[in-house]
């Protein structure tokens, strides 16, 4: 049991290190609270964004927590891939730079697993290979398919519904 856990732990840790560094230029890694008796302690996630001191993921800002959480979720994926991911406006609290970082890493990972992402941000829509616009008409939801984001800016999708 311990061996299996440690093997999984090390895989998640190395994926977090690689992805976080590539994505932000900072460092992030897992740490065991009690290396001698693994199941007696927890697993910490220590994160240092560029120019900052390493802190627990719980002490980050809202946007920093979003990036860190996504990296952690994708690292778990390397252990047990899910056939699909559903993400609902996960980019809402991100600034422009982090929105780009997030959609870049999701585009990469969507090669192995399908990612269905609800978003209100044009820059995220622009990275998708398939786009659905949803708008209400007399209280009933309508869906329209778009192949290419440049065809329909977000504002137009919004306007179609009014």
């Amino acid at each position, binding site marked *: 049991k311990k061996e*299996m856990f440690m093997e999984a732990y090390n895989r*998640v840790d190395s994926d977090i290190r690689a992805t976080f560094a590539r994505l932000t230029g900072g460092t992030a890694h897992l740490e065991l609270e009690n290396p001698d008796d693994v*199941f007696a302690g*927890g*697993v*910490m996630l220590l994160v240092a964004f560029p120019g900052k001191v390493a802190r627990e*993921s*719980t002490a980050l800002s*809202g946007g920093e*927590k*979003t990036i860190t*959480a*996504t990296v*952690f*979720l994708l690292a*778990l994926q390397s*252990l*047990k891939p*899910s*056939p*699909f*991911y*559903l*993400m*609902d*406006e*996960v980019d*809402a*609290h991100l600034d422009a730079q982090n929105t780009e970082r997030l*959609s870049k890493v*999701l585009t990469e990972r*969507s*090669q192995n697993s*399908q*990612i*269905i*992402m*609800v978003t*209100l941000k044009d820059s*995220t829509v622009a*990275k*998708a*290979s*398939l*786009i*659905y*616009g*949803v*708008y*209400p008409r007399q*209280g*009933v*939801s*309508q*869906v329209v398919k778009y192949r290419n984001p440049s065809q329909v800016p*977000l504002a137009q*999708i*919004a306007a179609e*519904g*009014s």
Partner: protein
Amino acid sequence: VHIKKLEVYGFKSFGFRNTVVHFENGLVAITGPNGSGKSNILDAIMFAIGENSPKAMRVDKFQSLFHDSQNPGHRLVRVSITFDNLDRGIPMDEDTVTLTREMEGLTGDSQYLLNGKKVSKTAIMELLEVVLSAPNKLNIVQQGMITRISELNSEERRKIIEDIV
């Protein structure tokens, strides 16, 4: 395996018509104004793959999943999800696998169909293990919840890795 198609009838803001959404592999974006029905599409997917907690679909009880305007006597919710199974990720010798969940009238009881044939929920749980939600449902991030994952304590984080192993 990936989601190929979703058909929604009478579920939340989807009315009495059969709304069809074709999906592809890769990154699919769903966008549109507030209140248009984007999150309801994700709720419909969760409903079809067997979600049993109304709260997870953002309603207080199953009855609230029926489209508002339905006459209480004739209410029907039907959601079908079709998976691409070319890679045989689902242990069935079919190129596509369609799971349908129907809920009728007042009881709120659901029935399931697999490729058109009625099956019990337990029968599908085994077979569709790979597409039904991941342990801790970590493959589904609902609106406003992403930062919670960074706020897990170290015990919770260890348990998540343990569950997967």
